[in-house]
């Protein structure tokens, strides 16, 4: 059953130096929304039991709300419990938020990234700390109950004191969810290039550990559960859509570069808009890449996603944890999961586990 629908909006007002998602600095195209609907048509034979919809990007909030209204007009959202839209803080006003709420969108995710001016500048964001706060408060007063903010940490020179300042602001905000991402210099991003040239000095792994554990503790004392490596939620507000990804549930991705996981297959759409458009207009599925997960590959993939969560995996999935990484695991009832130190070292641990899976 396909339980989630992801919709990728690849347009942005500008390209952030850390972002490795497919996005183009361009006006949002009305035609693109039509293509998305055409693409969905191509999959009408799939067994749907939609529970979540996620509008991500890029910047979905670049579209005026009227266009979203048109888009949602003939989209069957009955039975869908969570519809999230990613928003830039500077995009929408209070009336817009009200409009979105009417469409059935019930969760907003703000790309705030930081509440400190110096960090926003470093990250190349165009909004101010104030605008971030304003967006959240306006959305709340418009009637949104479920609000997320994205935060980036692990910036060059960042201190625990900086993080403390962020948390002071967060503490008073009416948010239910927080994603805190470690800055990662991905290849083909501006930061990636700078990092490779040695011009971006990131914190040491010891400092990262310190910040990670600090955030985890501070946020939990504020009532947030640390339920995935980078995600924190108030009780009852875990992101249902993202949990699909981490529990091997089926989802369909629409739009440029969007990925799906259906029938033990991961498949991704064209990253090139023109190729995507051509395929969809010709009535062909715009699939560019495909990965079929069989046997141990399926298990490796499952470990890759599921160990990211606080729920971990059933014990029978990991009957033989090698001794030298045992210390990073915790057992709870019939489940086994990574400790916080384990999360910090998840890449190393996964490599060990993959070896174990390949050569039991």
């Amino acid at each position, binding site marked *: 059953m396909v339980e989630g629908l992801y919709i990728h909006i690849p347009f942005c007002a500008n390209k952030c130096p850390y972002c490795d998602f497919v996005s183009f600095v361009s006006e949002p195209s009305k035609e693109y929304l039509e293509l998305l609907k055409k693409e969905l048509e191509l999959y009408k034979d799939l067994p749907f039991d939609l529970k979540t919809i996620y509008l991500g990007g890029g910047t979905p909030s670049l579209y005026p709300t009227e266009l979203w209204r048109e888009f949602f007009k003939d989209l069957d959202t009955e039975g869908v419990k969570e519809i999230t839209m990613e928003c830039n803080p500077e995009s929408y006003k209070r009336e817009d938020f009200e409009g979105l709420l009417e469409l059935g969108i019930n969760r907003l995710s703000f790309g705030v990234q930081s509440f400190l001016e110096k960090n926003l500048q470093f990250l190349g964001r165009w909004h101010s700390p104030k605008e971030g706060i304003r967006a959240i408060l306006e959305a709340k007063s418009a009637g949104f109950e479920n609000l997320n903010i994205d935060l980036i940490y692990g910036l060059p020179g960042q201190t625990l004191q900086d993080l403390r300042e962020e948390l002071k602001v967060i503490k008073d905000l009416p948010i239910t969810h927080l994603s805190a991402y*470690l800055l*990662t210099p991905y290849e083909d991003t501006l930061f990636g290039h700078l990092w490779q040239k040695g011009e971006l000095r990131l914190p040491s792994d010891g400092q990262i550990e310190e910040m990670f554990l600090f955030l985890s503790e501070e946020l939990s004392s504020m009532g947030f559960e640390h339920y995935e490596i980078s995600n924190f939620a108030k009780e009852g507000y875990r992101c249902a859509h993202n949990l699909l990804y981490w529990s091997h549930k089926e989802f369909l*991705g629409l739009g440029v570069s969007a990925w799906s996981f259906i029938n033990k297959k991961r498949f991704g759409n064209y990253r090139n808009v023109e190729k995507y458009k051509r395929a969809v207009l010709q009535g062909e599925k715009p699939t560019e890449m495909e990965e079929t997960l069989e046997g141990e590959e399926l298990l490796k993939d499952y470990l890759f996603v599921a160990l990211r969560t606080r729920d971990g995996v059933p014990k029978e999935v990991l009957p033989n944890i090698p001794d030298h990484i045992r210390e990073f695991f915790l057992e709870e009832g019939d489940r086994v999961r990574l400790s916080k130190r384990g999360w910090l070292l998840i890449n190393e641990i996964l490599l060990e586990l993959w070896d174990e899976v390949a050569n039991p």
Partner: protein
Amino acid sequence: MLERIRNFSIIAHVDHGKSTLADRLLEYTGAVSRRELKEQMLDTLEIERERGITIKLQAVRMEYKGYLLHLIDTPGHVDFSYEVSRALAACEGAILLVDATQGIEAQTVANFWKAVEQDLVIIPVINKIDLPAAEPERVKKQIEDILGLDGDDVILASAKEGIGIEEILNAIIERIPPPKGDPKAPLKALIFDSYYDPYRGAVAFVRVFEGEVKPGTRIKLFSTGKEFEVTEVGAQTPKMTKFEKLSAGEVGYIAASIKDVRDIRVGDTITDAKRPADSPVPGFRPAKPMVFAGLYPSEGYTFEELRDALEKYAINDAAIYYEPETSPALGMGFRVGFLGLLHMEIVQERLEREYRVGLITTAPSVVYRVRFKNRTVKEIKNPSELPENWGIIEAIEEPFVSITIITPKEYVGSIMNLCQEKRGIQKSFKYLDPNTAMLEYEMPLSEILLDFHDKIKSLSRGYASYDYEFIGYREEDLVRLNIFINNEPVDALSFIVHRDKAYRRARQLVEKLKDTIPRQLFEVKVQAGIGSKIIASERIPPLRANVTAKCYGGDITRKKKLLEKQKEGKKRLKQFGKVELPQEAFLSVLKVD
């Protein structure tokens, strides 16, 4: 007939223009036209051309004014000094070529003395006089003062510009005596080079001293007693040209369907099996590899591929020695013996380039001689062969060389410091002229293997030159330095070092290992000790974070691939106990400076 033959070599320091002069001689005597002269005719191998040095000897026959001139080429590097001496033994004279801009250098002196030992007539030639920096008068004075030659005999030349070539050719005819020898006497031919030819088999280049040899002659090798029937004789003109026979005084090649170049070793004497000579040409000694290193297939190549490549390569190089060896870190490979560092580099390059096999080469080491208390002696080619129990050892000996260094005077101080640091014992120190000093030291070969070349070149901005020769084994206060990773000894990392240097080397080594061993999920302790006594120690703190921060639906396949890439890197690590060591850790061990 003998009256009209001249056999000669050109001896020179590297880059002083030997190959260019040889080319000019070939061109001038009409053996080769300018068009045929592909760069440098005598250097047949690609690598030789690239490095500007000659490795394989060859002998070329030219005709000039009714004379037969045999030019016997000599390799120009210290590793091949024995081959040089054999080539010179085949001659009556030698052109001593000195670069007008560089003056006399270490190999000039070394080769000069080798030629004098063979009683050769020396024709001194100053080359490159066309260059703006040329100082022919200073060089001429050096030749007089240092080598004791008559300055009036010096010929000024520029091989590149064709200046002085005719004068050199005339000097060869007028000053070098014709060879002696009796064509009727029993055959006596000195092998001064060999190579493997897919059609002729192993081919020997020889100087016939007595008697004659022709197709059908049954020949015998003096050192082994092995017999073969000659299928072809001839000379390079410079093409391989068949003759009816080779007679006393002549230089040429002999082919006899010989399968292995090891059957015709340089320095050995060929005689007639039916009518053998009483004694060989004196001076034969089998090539002895002085420098050993492990050669292993690199990622993507197999042991079998390496073995095939080595076998094929060795067909053409009788000086190379190899035996299989297994390293806990690098798997199956070979311990390979070379004449010296340059020989090692050449073999490596040829294996990779011509035989297309990727190599990992461990740091070169010397052969130690271990004397046990029970009066047995063992030669150790690989430090990991050392016995665990140090108590049974009476002494360890290591090879020493005599090294001659020639340098501009301003670098004398720092070079003396270097030599002292390298455990050198000064034997002499003199000024060749007001600006140039010559130093002689006795020094362990192992110290030369360890970046001596790079150091002396950088200390002297490339101006100092050196040449060395093996003089024998000496007992030294050597100890075995053991490396422990988390208290476990790693045999593959142990090595032999002089006691005075043990502390410094131990410290450098653990620091290097600390830098090359990637941080693990737990703390790693790296220690070095003499026996079990720890003298240096470092901690590698455990890794604290390696996390994929963001992972959603569209990321999974991509982020898994990034992780797979990390895994590729880990493949090269070898597990020691719980610790994973990268190959660099092993390779860094002997490269500590």
